[in-house]
């Protein structure tokens, strides 16, 4: 974190909305009432610089943007976006390389244990997946990819609540599919998911045999159904703006029926492990999960398959199961529901729970055609979502229906990012089990294929009464609400930000000690005197909450923080910790908008 940062730009857009509801556009960087509360080594011009199709965003706007586009960010990231502009920043993210694959990282940990314990047969352990995920997300600069990949992992859901729950190779290799395809094409993603053995096991189409009518045996319908219902088209026909197409009876129209599912089920037969030479074998070993499934044509259902919209998979002779699968994926990829379905999902994950129909349609149109005639271009879709006026407009501040509850796991990553969690060696280890226990969310731990929460979930109360949705409220209950506040106590007040454990019994303490995370509050502890507390709170408000905390909330927090002594270094630090704890507990922080 920058040691000389003390500049606070105070934006009316976020704190005095009622006064200026229509003239201020946060993402385009118009600002009213810019206030510099402290000196800075940086020299920020009072006027924005015209660049691209808009203005450079100010810091609050940058914070808002990074709250949509990343899992967490620090003060330098805010400055970077403010200096580069949003679109350039996105473009710079698109070309950032994938530094390593999670599956190889797991392999490294595994080899490390084998060597350190002098046990060539030592097994992998679940912890290796968690450590690999955390290492990647703490140490890699491709933060937009990380955000999109996590969203995709909540769409194409597989979970450790499954047969491969303890297998770090399976989980890491599957998550690599999300990272690898965050910026490719939606069709590539569909293909890589379809052939991944973790999905094959999770939705039970690995070793799915063809029919045997003599014994009343038919293809497994699991993947056929969920691929349509959850990953591509949904259950009802959609207009491009995400609304239902209504039939003559005024009711939504089903996109498929049970007969269609049985036809798709025939397509997803014959796949099995790539390191087996015969069909219907169990996994050869843990690393079998890192190899895409292969087709055993003799176990693939022969004959035509009648898919959607009149598309017919021909009776291929000889049998060609892979070609059949490509046809089925193409049938769904090209379905008119897929663009609005995916557009709405990703907008809800990144920006807001209740996007306007126009917003969905704008993004869906980009899904259909990226401008160069390409359908499903992820980069174009992501840009369309993040650069949309509805993502950036300051009107959101005044719109009582705008916003999304921040995912609890994202809040956790944000703590580590905002306060530069670091280790002596640069290697991180984090089992992420405390955050899971407290808030019941962690990558690839969904209780079912329906994700931690469903897109149409309506919490009872004002959101439901306005006929809106709030997906993340589905995991917001008495347990997780209290759990979240108490997680802040552990992570922030006790500064126990990560869960580091041995990789093997009696691991060398020195290695371990070098990988314990600590957070950096050095900039903040300079601001704990009573006459500077307002600057501390402004800074934290900007860094964590996009400046969305209003004066009354800041006053409540300041009053309590002032109760703590401010003499010793520890006491100063306690003040900062309590301020973070209270800000991150407040409704104005919890809602991303």
């Amino acid at each position, binding site marked *: 974190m920058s040691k000389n940062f003390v500049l606070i730009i105070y934006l009316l857009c976020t704190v005095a909305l009622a006064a200026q509801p229509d003239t201020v556009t946060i993402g385009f960087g118009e600002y009213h009432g810019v206030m510099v509360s402290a000196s800075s080594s940086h020299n920020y011009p009072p006027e924005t610089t015209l660049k691209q199709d808009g203005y450079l965003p100010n810091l609050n706007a940058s914070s808002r943007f990074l709250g949509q586009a990343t899992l967490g960010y620090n003060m330098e990231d805010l400055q970077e976006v403010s200096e580069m502009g949003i679109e350039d920043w996105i473009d710079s993210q698109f070309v950032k390389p994938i530094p390593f694959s999670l599956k190889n990282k797991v392999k490294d940990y595994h080899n490390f244990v084998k060597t350190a314990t002098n046990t060539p047969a030592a097994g992998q352990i679940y912890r290796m997946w968690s450590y690999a995920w955390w290492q990647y997300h703490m140490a890699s600069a491709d933060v937009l990819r990380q955000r999109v990949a996590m969203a995709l992992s909540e769409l194409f859901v597989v979970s450790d609540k499954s047969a491969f729950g303890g297998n770090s190779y399976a989980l890491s290799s599957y998550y690599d599919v999300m990272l690898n395809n965050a910026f490719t094409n939606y069709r590539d993603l569909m293909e890589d998911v379809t052939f991944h053995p973790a999905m094959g096991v999770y939705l039970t189409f690995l070793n799915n045999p063809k029919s045997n009518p003599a014994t*009343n045996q038919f293809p497994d319908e699991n993947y056929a159904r969920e691929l349509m219902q959850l990953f591509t088209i949904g259950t009802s026909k959609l207009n491009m703006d995400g609304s239902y197409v209504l039939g003559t009876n005024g009711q939504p129209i089903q996109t498929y029926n049970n007969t269609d599912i049985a036809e798709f*089920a025939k397509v997803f037969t014959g796949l099995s492990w790539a390191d087996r030479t015969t069909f219907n074998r169990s996994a050869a070993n843990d690393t079998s999960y890192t190899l895409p499934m292969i087709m055993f044509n003799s176990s693939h259902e022969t004959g035509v398959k009648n898919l959607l919209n009149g598309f017919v998979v021909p009776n291929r002779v000889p049998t060609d199961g892979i070609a059949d699968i490509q046809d089925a994926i193409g049938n769904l990829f090209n379905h008119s529901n897929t663009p609005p379905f995916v557009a709405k999902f990703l907008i809800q994950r990144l920006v807001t729970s209740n996007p306007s129909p126009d917003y969905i349609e704008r993004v869906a149109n980009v899904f259909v055609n990226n401008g160069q005639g390409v359908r499903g271009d992820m980069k174009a879709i992501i840009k369309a979502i993040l650069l949309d006026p509805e993502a950036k407009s300051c009107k959101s501040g005044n719109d009582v229906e705008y916003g999304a509850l921040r995912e609890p796991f994202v809040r956790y990553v944000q703590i580590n990012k905002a306060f530069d969690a670091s280790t002596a060696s640069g290697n991180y280890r984090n089992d992420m089990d405390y955050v899971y226990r407290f808030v019941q969310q962690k990558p690839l731990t969904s209780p079912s294929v329906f994700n931690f929460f*469903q897109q149409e979930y309506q919490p009872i109360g004002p959101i439901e009464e306005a006929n809106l949705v709030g997906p993340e409220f*589905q995991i917001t209950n008495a347990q997780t609400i209290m759990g979240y506040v108490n997680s802040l*106590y552990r992570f922030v007040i006790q500064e126990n930000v990560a869960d580091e454990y041995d990789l093997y019994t009696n691991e060398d303490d020195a290695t371990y000690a070098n990988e314990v995370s600590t957070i950096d509050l050095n900039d903040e502890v300079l601001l704990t005197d009573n006459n500077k507390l307002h600057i501390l709170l402004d800074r934290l408000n900007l860094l964590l909450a996009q400046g969305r905390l209003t004066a009354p909330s800041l006053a409540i*927090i300041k009053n309590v923080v002032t109760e703590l002594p401010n003499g010793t270094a520890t006491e100063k630090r306690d003040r900062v910790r309590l301020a973070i704890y209270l800000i991150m507990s407040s*409704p104005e922080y919890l809602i991303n908008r």
Partner: protein
Amino acid sequence: MSKRKISRRAFIGEASCAALGSMTLYNSLVNLGMMTTAATRPHIISTPSDYKAVVCILLAGGADSFNFIVPTETSEYAQYVATRGSLALSNSATPPQLLPLNYSNNGRTFSIHAGMSAVQNMFNTGKLSFVTNIGTLIEPIANKTEYNSGMKKVPLGLYSHSDQIMQWQTSVPQSRSAVGVAGRMADILQDMNSIPEAAMNISLAGKNRWQSGNETNEFSISNSSTAATIGYSNYSSGLSNAVYLNDRKNKALDSLAAQQYANLFHKTIGDLNVTTSESIEVFKVAMSNLVPLTTTFSATNLSNDLKKIAELIKVRSFLGAQRQTFFVSYGGWDHHDDVINNQNVMLPIVSNALNEFNNAMTELGMQDNVVTFTISDFARTLTSNGNGSDHAWGGNSMIMGGPIDGGNIFGEFPSLSLTSPLNLSNRGLLIPTTSVDEFYAEIALWFGVSPNDLSYILPNICNFYSPTCPAPVPSGFMPIGMFS
């Protein structure tokens, strides 16, 4: 979480959607205390001993319940084997795969899965019954011809997990936005409980639709929660004025939540934070008064959930509770694969947990005050996909407790022939012959919902209780007859 304020307009709007008669609406509003003249609440005549609880165990994922209970009359068993193929349980294997039930009706006999010996014992001693071929329905559908005619209303998203698991909890299969059955019961009955902060509906499985009402929310708790572990984490006494600081800290948390917010998302999370904080205070006190049970429970999550429920029933007076519902979820029943081996592991867990809970209720002397039942998304195809089965419709539930007419098989156990008029495809998907509405109606009436309010709890009930609806349901008119 207990109450939330609801505008009367919104409530009536919801009620109208549920097609209530004006008389019933009046009754519901009276019961909800929404009418200024609500001087009397006829069904809330209770004495301190009038405690009742229902416990819903969701077997999430769609359990293959046509292997829970199996027909054993010679020709019916042969049909079962022919249809189920590789999934059929043997009735002659050693060790046994099926255990006989002490039951016979016109020559029909049944056995249950050998993993459920405790259930067999409870059935045979009159503590538990089965309800067969039950499922989500908007109105009765007699057979495949009627189903295909387009003249009958069919549940939304049949065979889809998300829809069917939701409809089993709402009993409103024509809607994706309905609230839940227990939530609606709490809307009407929660005033029987004397501490408003302690919700009538308690979940061991987080948020769930069954317990979401128009005016009420569930309170979620974990089976590992104790008086010592729930509530805000606090500064330790190492700090000189820890007590004072903790009070200030926690008041600040509550103040931040309780501010007046215009944004609907702020308002919703703020309300949730406030009610959580209030509820937890009450539960903390109640749990600190717990004297441990002597009944032993297995070390499974399901048993631990039911143990926590038994403990909360034990401390009910500290929660001011006359009526409580509990919701538990045991997932992992989506057996597209390996159904035989998985059920061999999972059914003993269910069976033992039910038995242990029954023992605990006996210990507390509450065996005649608590009814426990299982639900699931749907049953699975009768035919195999190799060594698993796929999504289907009508299935089988268990219901347990002193008030139940035990040792019975309720509903109509269907023919398992693929040529049955109830079968919708060559996979073996059966149209239910008993509706979820009928099932919940009897539970709700026992629980204390007045017949006049039944249509509020179950908006479609009149499709099954004709021709007397919407007039009050005559007492004793119960198509299933689960309660003795």
